[in-house]
């Protein structure tokens, strides 16, 4: 049995991904085993709502080259081979620029005298723990000034266990490589948007991403009522349905500001999120039958 991976993404920041992801996890947790991954490692927030007890903290690391300057013959092959210009050569001295290094291992493999060894360099943290209700929780954070979140996201995802029925992935905002790393293998992607021109523009970006990943998706319109109907009109022309609408209410904004889970402080959402899950399962099955 494979875990069912549901990712929550948005394109535009601040639309309510974490609100949806944490509520969905909390609701489903009453009936199924759930694991939650906060993949927004630049600005992780889910722990503020789910409040896990962390039982493991590990360094998130990337492998970077260390050159044995004595063994190095100055042939320059490592410098040549590095696509990211993370190495420079001064005579027979090799200089590493660690923040440019992607940890691909090419330099080490190409060195004709085995003068390069790879050593781990810390770029952040991986934390795991348990939410009191039973949800297995995993999060990460990127060390301040480090540029690349994607390696941490990959390492986080390696903690997914197939024995757990449902996996919820809280994605970073945007539509580029960190988001792709989070959602590319999701069975379903929930796109959270707001009914405004900014929401629509950024939603279109995400629909473009889903075209490439091939996952089925559905939209939640959050803060319904603050803008106009263009998002809904647009979605009518796509195969991505509006699955839920959450109206703008000051009460919701305040509850979230206090760090509360939506389905906890407005219990009517419990059945809504369960229904959402049922619709998601139907759409996943439909997609499988079509044999995408």
């Amino acid at each position: 049995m494979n875990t069912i991976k549901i990712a929550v993404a948005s394109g535009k920041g601040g639309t309510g991904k974490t609100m949806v992801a944490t509520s969905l996890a909390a609701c489903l947790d009453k009936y199924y085993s759930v694991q939650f991954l906060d993949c927004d490692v630049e600005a992780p927030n889910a722990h503020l709502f789910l409040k896990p007890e962390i039982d493991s903290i590990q360094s998130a690391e990337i492998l970077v080259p260390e050159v044995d300057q004595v063994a190095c013959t100055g042939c320059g092959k490592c410098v040549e081979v590095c696509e990211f210009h993370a190495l420079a050569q001064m005579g027979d001295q090799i200089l590493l620029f660690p923040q440019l290094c992607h940890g691909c291992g090419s330099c080490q493999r190409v060195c004709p005298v085995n003068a390069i060894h790879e050593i781990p360099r810390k770029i952040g943290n991986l934390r795991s723990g348990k939410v009191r209700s039973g949800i297995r929780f995993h999060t990460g954070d990127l060390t301040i000034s480090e540029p690349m979140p994607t390696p941490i996201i990959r390492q986080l995802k390696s903690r997914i266990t197939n024995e757990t029925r449902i996996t919820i992935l809280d994605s970073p905002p945007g539509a580029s490589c960190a988001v792709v790393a989070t959602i590319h293998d999701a069975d379903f992607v929930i796109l959270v948007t707001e009914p405004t021109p900014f929401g629509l523009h950024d939603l279109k970006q995400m629909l473009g991403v889903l075209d490439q990943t091939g996952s089925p998706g559905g939209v939640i319109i959050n803060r319904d009522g603050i803008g106009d109907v263009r998002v809904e009109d647009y979605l009518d022309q796509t195969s991505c349905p509006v699955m839920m609408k959450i109206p703008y209410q000051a009460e919701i904004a305040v509850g979230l500001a206090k760090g509360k889970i939506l389905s906890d402080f407005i219990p009517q959402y419990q059945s809504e999120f369960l229904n959402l899950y049922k619709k998601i399962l139907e759409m996943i099955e439909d997609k499988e039958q079509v044999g995408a």
Partner: protein
Amino acid sequence: MIAKMQTGKAKQCVILSGKGGTGKTSISASLMHLSSQNISGVYVDADVDAANLALVTAAVPQETHEFSGSKLAVIDPLFCSSCGSCFDVCRYDAIQEPVKEQASYQVIDLLCDGCAACVHACPESAIRMVVQQDGEWYHSISAYGDLFHAELFPAAENTGKLVTTIKQEAVSFAEKHQIPLIIVDGPPGIGCPVISASTGADLALLVAEPGVSGKHDLERIIQTLEHLKIPILICINKYDIYPEGTDAIKRLANSYGYQIIGEIPFDDAIPNAMVQAKPVTEFAPESPASLAIQKICEVILPVLFSDGGNL
């Protein structure tokens, strides 16, 4: 009134938040509108995978440029001997094993990091790297001045380089035309695109929102900017939705030695203005949000243009 550059380079202000959705773009558009009444400016939308500034500033593209740079590996099936060396070396799970024996291996484009490890591992030289177009960037004329913005193609890479590219274009343009001010609407987060958006800034305006997430992420962006040694001013948007949260933000700011220079109330004039494709200060100049943003503008500009800044 500063119509032309006094000496040397334009002054650069970047607008950031850490957390997404706090109102950076709405405030950037309003600052463009307000500042342009007294100071010529050049503007940059550095949030290239969710580029919204052009939507509310009547931007008309004058030039479109292709943006390329990332590379993808491509395996030529005619030369592939199915040895699997590429699969063995790829650390990004971007090589797909063939379903049928002796069929060719294939690259999964979405996951390919562009490292070329497979190219060097392939004994048949069957793999090459192909440059991709990652997006487009535009030089537009907005209602307030020249705007440099971009659209990253969905799922593309190289966000940081695209941000750097449009910023450099803006800086060159400002130099050439002696324009004294550059406003950069920044992306959410703290990683590479934020670092690229912030490099060269004389000042960062942080837009905070009250609440546990807003406070947590504000601290991360403060730490990032301190690391980059960029001076910070902080304002709070939607301050009235949760007063205890606003107080917590003020305490956080003070603990780092910063003052709050403005507080903007929750105001539906902001989304209403967005729907009308205008900055709120133009659409509803007497609205509470507009009045608050006006006051913020009156603080930022003198700080930006003073010599040596008192922050």
